């Protein structure tokens, strides 16, 4: 180890450094604004949080995305380069004065010297890539500058140039030091060493103090104003991901409306229902907004944004932050949050498909925030989208959003002479088949329900249906912000389900599946729920079904958001399809598939109302399918079926294409 030398870092530098740190701390008050948010039940565990901050924060695990490869590499170079230099600077802060000298390396320790130059070159390379991306070659949709709330000191390009100045300035200062001091290990600082040969010794001697001071002052300035620039995310993100419980991703918080209604102290004039202003959010939701880096990946992948609707998930998050900073720090203009900064039209355009959350590198939960604001519109203002209010009223009256009669719950079966076992008669059964409102009433999905029954009968499964006792699970109502209706339906269904004995609930509808398996536990309903794709796969694996291998042609599978992104079920439906593909068939994976699948447009209650702005989401998805040359499209979702079937007709492809549920595909081959 090289000998520690107290080099000539002047005391003035330390004075300035403490001033800079002080200003940094003052600027960090932004982080504490989230205290105006509500408390939330958020079980945290130390190791989980540490893992998150190392993996998603320092490690930037989710910065990598195959849809943004260039930007991912660019950010890794900048991010890790920056972190390395921060480490180097911190070490030097101490060793320059000889503090902790026994434990710390010096700038001339070979490995440290090598590491530091590598960090510097990474930062510069990343910055150059970013400048190239922003100004010369735009390889993908660039972040729209939307810097609401925190400001963007120096601007998007300015901050890159600042980083470049820091990187280059560091190398020059280093080169001067190496040229003048000539340490034995100089060559390990390979960049600085190379630069040190470019000028004469005398020139370096003259320039050395100037270079050192300019680099020092630039660095201190950078640190002190960091929270006022785009770079604030470097700090805010680490804190946000550290406090994120990934098990609760996309989780909609129950409001316990029933309890609220019974509370004698509740004042209907005063109580806030849903989120109408930033202080109605929880502190964690506010921290999400503080952490937003404005990379705009969410808006790029959002099916509503990309088909020309008013919604931009990034704008929603930055608007929340703007509102937060306005109310706490007095930044910017005063305005209402919902109905002011954020319009109802933006909120209703969301399909809750989760593409934004999937792509967000800093683990922001956009969908629950949007749903919370929808709750305000519906529960507080009584303003659901006009068309959707009819289906909400129908759900309230008739237990299904179509408004068909409860008495006709079994018509889909009796019309084709299926005599179904009813759970009320059997009391106890192995499998409860939850048909769902689409399977019950929608003509296209009735065929799917009939196929499921054929499969169950063929595999001799001991099953029953609820018949008239089944009502809507409340998925659409909940996502439309109608938590009261949802809670009523959930309680009703849970009471029904709890009165019988069964081992498994199966359903062909991913929305019913998601609601019963992930949301009913919050209301006391805990069941073993299996989506029909997994159930059929199990039957196939167990040899209980032997469908003919006769599916040929160009086959593809469209991932449903509530099966894929929301529940990570990607393989089961593909395996089911695979079991009937012929040798000659050509299975095509869509470009936007699995976790980057493109929504059909029906999620989030958007099945029940139409946003006429821009293109129709289902038609856009159909165009992607047509471009893939697939002519046989498999789905595993009732809503996707309706939307794609409709889009196929809009495109005039009904004679050339077939859209089928995986259950239909299997059933007709038994």
């Amino acid at each position: 180890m090289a000998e520690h030398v107290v080099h000539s870092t002047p005391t003035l530098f330390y004075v300035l450094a403490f001033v800079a740190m002080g200003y940094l701390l003052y600027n960090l008050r932004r982080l504490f604004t989230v205290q105006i948010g509500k408390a939330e039940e958020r079980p945290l565990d130390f190791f989980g949080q540490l893992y998150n901050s190392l993996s998603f924060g320092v490690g930037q695990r989710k910065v990598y995305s195959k849809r943004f490869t260039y930007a991912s590499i660019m950010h890794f170079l900048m991010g890790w380069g920056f972190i390395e230099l921060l480490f180097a600077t911190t070490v030097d802060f101490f060793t320059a004065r000889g503090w902790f000298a026994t434990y710390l390396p010096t700038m001339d320790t070979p490995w440290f010297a090598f590491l530091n130059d590598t960090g510097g070159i990474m930062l510069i390379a990343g910055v150059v890539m970013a400048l190239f991306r922003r100004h010369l070659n735009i390889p993908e949709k660039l972040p729209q500058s939307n810097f609401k709330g925190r400001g963007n000191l120096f601007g998007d390009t300015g901050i890159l140039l600042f980083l470049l100045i820091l990187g280059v300035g560091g190398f020059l200062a280093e080169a001067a030091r190496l040229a003048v001091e000539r340490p034995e290990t100089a060559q390990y600082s390979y960049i600085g060493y190379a630069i040190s040969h470019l000028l004469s010794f005398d020139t370096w001697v003259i320039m050395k103090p100037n270079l050192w001071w300019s680099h020092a002052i630039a660095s201190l300035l950078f640190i002190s104003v960091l929270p006022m620039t785009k770079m604030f995310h470097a700090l805010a993100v680490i804190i946000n991901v550290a406090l994120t419980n990934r098990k609760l991703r996309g989780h909609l918080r129950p409001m316990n409306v029933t309890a609220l209604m019974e509370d004698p102290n509740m004042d209907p004039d005063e109580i806030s229902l849903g989120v109408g202003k930033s202080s109605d959010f929880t502190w964690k939701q506010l921290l999400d907004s503080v952490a937003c880096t404005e990379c705009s990946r969410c808006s790029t992948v959002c099916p509503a944004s990309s088909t020309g609707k008013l919604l931009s998930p990034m704008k929603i998050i930055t608007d929340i932050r703007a509102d937060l900073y306005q109310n706490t720090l007095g930044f910017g203009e005063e305005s209402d949050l919902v109905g002011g900064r954020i319009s109802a039209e933006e909120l209703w355009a969301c399909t809750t498909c989760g593409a934004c959350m999937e792509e967000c590198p800093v683990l922001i939960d956009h969908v629950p925030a949007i749903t919370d604001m929808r709750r305000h519109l519906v529960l507080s203002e009584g303003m659901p989208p006009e068309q959707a209010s009819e289906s909400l009223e129908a759900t309230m009256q008739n237990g299904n959003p179509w408004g068909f009669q409860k008495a006709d719950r079994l018509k889909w079966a009796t019309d084709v002479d299926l005599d179904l076992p009813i759970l009320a008669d059997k009391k106890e059964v192995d499998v409860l088949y939850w048909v769902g409102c689409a399977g019950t009433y929608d003509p296209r999905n009735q065929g799917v329900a009939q196929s499921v029954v054929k499969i169950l009968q063929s595999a001799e499964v001991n099953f029953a249906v609820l018949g008239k006792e089944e009502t809507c699970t409340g998925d659409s109502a909940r996502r439309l912000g109608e938590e009261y209706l949802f809670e009523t339906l959930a309680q009703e269904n849970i009471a029904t389900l709890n009165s019988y004995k069964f081992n498994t609930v199966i359903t062909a509808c991913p929305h019913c599946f998601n609601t019963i398996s992930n949301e009913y536990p919050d209301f006391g309903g805990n069941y073993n729920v299996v989506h029909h794709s997994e159930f059929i796969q199990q039957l196939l694996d167990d040899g209980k079904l032997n469908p003919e291998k006769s599916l040929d042609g160009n086959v593809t599978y469209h991932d449903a958001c509530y099966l894929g992104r929301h529940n990570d079920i990607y393989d089961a439906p593909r395996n089911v399809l695979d079991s009937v593909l012929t040798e000659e068939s050509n299975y095509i994976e869509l470009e936007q598939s699995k976790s980057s699948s493109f929504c059909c447009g029906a999620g989030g209650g958007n099945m029940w109302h139409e946003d006429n702005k821009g293109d129709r989401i289902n038609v856009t998805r159909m165009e992607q399918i047509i471009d893939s040359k697939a002519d046989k499209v498999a789905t595993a979702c009732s809503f996707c079926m309706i939307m794609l079937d409709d889009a196929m007709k809009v495109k005039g492809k009904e004679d050339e294409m077939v859209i089928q549920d995986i259950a239909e595909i299997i059933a007709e081959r038994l």
Partner: protein
Amino acid sequence: MKIVVLVKQVFDKDSNINVSGDGVLTNREDLTLSTNESDAYALEEALQIKEKNGGEVIVVSVGNDSVLTVIKDGLAKGADRGLHVKIDNEESLDALDLAKLIHASIKDENIDMVLSGLQSDDKGNGQTGILLAELMNLSHASLVMGTEIQDDNSIRVKRELEGGWFQWTDLSLPTSLTIQSGINKPRYSSLRGIMMMKKKPIDVKSAEDLGFTALQKSKVMKMYIPEKTKETVYIEGSVNEIVDQLMDKFANEIKIF
């Protein structure tokens, strides 16, 4: 402006009603009850008039305890108080008795307006609002598609005529208007509204309280589902013969002339 809205609870429009041979409903428990469609528009119109001009909206419904649902829905949407005229055999009242009963229940209120739906989705008499006007000596208009309060004593209403025509007419207040569906967009009940509803008063008056006993002037003799029939007739012959036969059928069988 003190406005009374008459709201009736009826079977859901799309209900599949099953009737046995002796004219008894056999699937009552399967049928969904809801607010009569045009009454929902009448309520919305009343709420909008109140919002613009101030005042009070009172929701009145006649029937057994089940009608409390439609009264509460009206209160949740913004009406100020409810009045439940309690009677078990509402179905057997004729329109005049119903109007008399309602009259007795609201005559002490110093009302400016009675709004009701044009007709009920079940019996479809379309008379209650008009008979009430007569009993209470109010001006009246039916098939109302628009309202404009002129001053404290008059209102201008838009009435729907046949063939796509409309009529604007001025009426003196107090008045009774029967409202056509489609006049406005009925609002959605917010949870806040439902919470507030719990604190709003609902008066209950029985037929006996109002001095009526043994009201039953009409009786359902028979109830049946209309039979759908379909007949196809081939008309043959020369063009002239076909035209003659067609004209004869139009004039004498289908009676379209």
